[in-house]
């Protein structure tokens, strides 16, 4: 098959490579990188809504690091993320192990268990708002009827209750993502490894520790890294259910940044709050990239 010299040039790995990544480059550079740089620039100015402000260097960062509310939000963001990720990982893995077996209705189960992840966050957050209501909670109602508790639980009225309630909702929403990911990981483990272990007399737990878990580490890294980034910058769920309250107990980076930038019009400071977790996330992203490269 003969081709014109032009097509041959275009088809060379180098030229074709650049051509193929151009659409992605345009989208990501224009709609993400550029606004991001704009956002970082904003964080270095005293910009307010409608006024560009002056360049102030790192002053916004100094201000927020000295602010107890910011420190509280930073702390809770990390706490929220660590707890939620741990919950999702453990429960997701357990569910995957469960669904990896063949039983009656396993197909339906696999599809249904995805629902929390699939439902629009804003709407399922509203449903949870009612489920966690101090007066109307169906959960409290059930637990009271089962004689497990005496009176309704005040899920959202006390700082620590609210903090854990949000973690539970986040785990509820994100569990399916981990379960499905682990299901895929489990299916890529060769069956003969287990057969060999069985022949050697290994128990189920030993098989899990020696075969399953190590072979799942790559996907664990990927799932965890991506999910952590999403969780650390979670906004809609928290804003809808507690709005950062009670008494700022559930403020996270994004809710505080949104509040400062939009309500008070302090764009520079809001941008600084939003940009500050990037260091943490850059570390996470670094691990993702490294694990992908190693494969």
């Amino acid at each position: 098959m003969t081709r014109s010299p032009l097509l041959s040039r275009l088809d060379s790995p180098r030229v074709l490579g650049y051509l193929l990544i151009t659409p992605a480059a345009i989208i990501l550079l224009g709609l993400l990188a550029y606004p991001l740089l704009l956002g970082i620039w904003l964080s270095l100015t005293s910009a307010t809504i409608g006024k560009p402000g002056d360049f102030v260097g790192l002053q916004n960062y100094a201000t927020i690091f000295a602010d107890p509310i910011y420190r509280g939000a930073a702390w809770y963001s990390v706490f929220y993320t660590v707890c939620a990720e741990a919950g999702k990982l453990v429960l997701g893995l357990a569910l995957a192990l469960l669904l990896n077996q063949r039983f009656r209705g396993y197909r339906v189960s696999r599809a249904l268990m995805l629902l929390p992840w699939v439902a629009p966050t804003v709407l399922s957050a509203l449903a949870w708002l009612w489920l966690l209501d101090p007066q109307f909670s169906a959960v409290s109602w059930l637990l009271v009827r089962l004689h497990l508790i005496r009176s309704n639980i005040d899920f959202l009225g006390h700082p620590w209750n609210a903090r854990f309630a949000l973690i539970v909702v986040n785990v509820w929403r994100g569990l399916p993502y981990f379960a499905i990911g682990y299901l895929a990981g489990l299916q890529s483990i060769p069956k003969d490894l287990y057969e060999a272990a069985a022949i050697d007399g290994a128990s189920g737990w030993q098989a899990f520790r020696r075969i399953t878990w190590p072979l799942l580490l790559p996907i664990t890294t990927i799932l965890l890294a991506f999910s952590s980034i999403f969780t650390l910058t979670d906004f809609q769920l928290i804003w809808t259910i507690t709005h950062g309250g009670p008494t700022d107990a559930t403020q996270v980076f994004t809710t505080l940044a949104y509040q400062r930038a939009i309500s008070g019009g302090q764009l520079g400071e809001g941008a600084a709050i939003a940009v500050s977790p990037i260091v943490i996330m850059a570390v996470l992203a670094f691990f993702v990239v490294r694990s992908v490269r190693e494969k």
Partner: protein
Amino acid sequence: MSHPDRRRFLHMSAAGIGAATVAGGFPALASAADSPFKPEKGASLQLLRWTAFVKSDQTVWDENTKKFTAATGVPVTIQSLTWNDVTPKAALAAQVGSGPDIVMGWNDDPFVYPDKLVEMSDLVEYMGKAHGGWYDNARSYCYDQDVKRWVSFPIGCTGNAVNYRKSWAKDAGFTEFPKDLDGMLKLARGLKKNGHPTGFALGHAVGDANSWTHWILWAFGGKQANPDNSIAINSGETANALEYAKQLYETMIDGVAGWDDSSNNKAFAAGLIGMTMNGISIWYAQKNAADTSLFPDFANATPPMGPVKQHTVSNNFTSAFVFKYSKYPNAAKEYLRFMLDAPQADRWVTEMLGYVTPALKKYSELPIWTSNPNITPYRDALAYAKYDGYNGKPGKAAAQALDEFVVVDMFADVCVNKMTPKDAMRKAEAKLAAIYKRA
């Protein structure tokens, strides 16, 4: 208002402004033709307003808008967003210099970006003269003291009153709602004893938490700032307010610290609480509920006074501002003039049962306010109100303090987190100092 007055004023203003070409000709309505605000040729308007809390508000507003279009040939598209989403949308429009022509926003919104807004002094003066003048809060929320001009056109507030169950109050020994806070506390205790606790939001409920905490704060003489914007929250008066709130909290139902704006409505409708504070929507909802037999038992009362012996209620104020990027500022002003003019606004206020208490004093004379004693407390919402950030300068700092729930959290810290008033005040003071310094 009487016709001779209006004709005299219009005669003066028309002479001052001179003849202006009328776009497309105005059929019929005399008021439109007399108005000094002439829409530009080929004008069209986009209005961003908050989704009406009561359906009739929207119905009548839309019908009045259609009348405006018929009268002037100016089409108006209305975009409704839930009330908390209007502020960010408006902020975005200010930031990027493009968006709706008119925004019906809240509280200190216009003070966050006054330079982006069309001056409204002419419209404000015109309407004030024609409708018996403005309540004080109109100036507090629409006149920017820094740039020294009216940056927004006041519309009114969503009034707050105390809502309670008449029969339960009677059981607790009160045939009439108490006129002072001591009486109210006695009533609250009686209600709680009989199994009908009270309920006032202490979570980050944008409307309900701010309304009662500010009312109580001011009722005892506490205030956020002084006229020069120095912080004044840390005081004996504030401490008294906090002590009162602590005692009131003992009479409340569980979970108020996690309440959002809809929680007290739900609890009140379900008969779980005997007293709360809200706009008239809470009472209106019972009117249209499937079971109307209970309706007469729901009552509204003017919020009682505290030791300062003055009314000190807190409401959410809504005003309309026009962005400078709009190509049709005159059309916008004429639209606002039209909508808040008697023929339109009389019907609007009446059919929504006074959900919005207009900032123009003349509308307090409408018969709707006295048609039912439960509606009357809302008539005085603006007459009795202070503005958020009292007694400091309205503006960016007050806006931020309100949105960060500084006052609400101070009350919650004392009631829920069991902080001493001293510590709670100090914490609030530090927060306010940072906010006011930045602004």
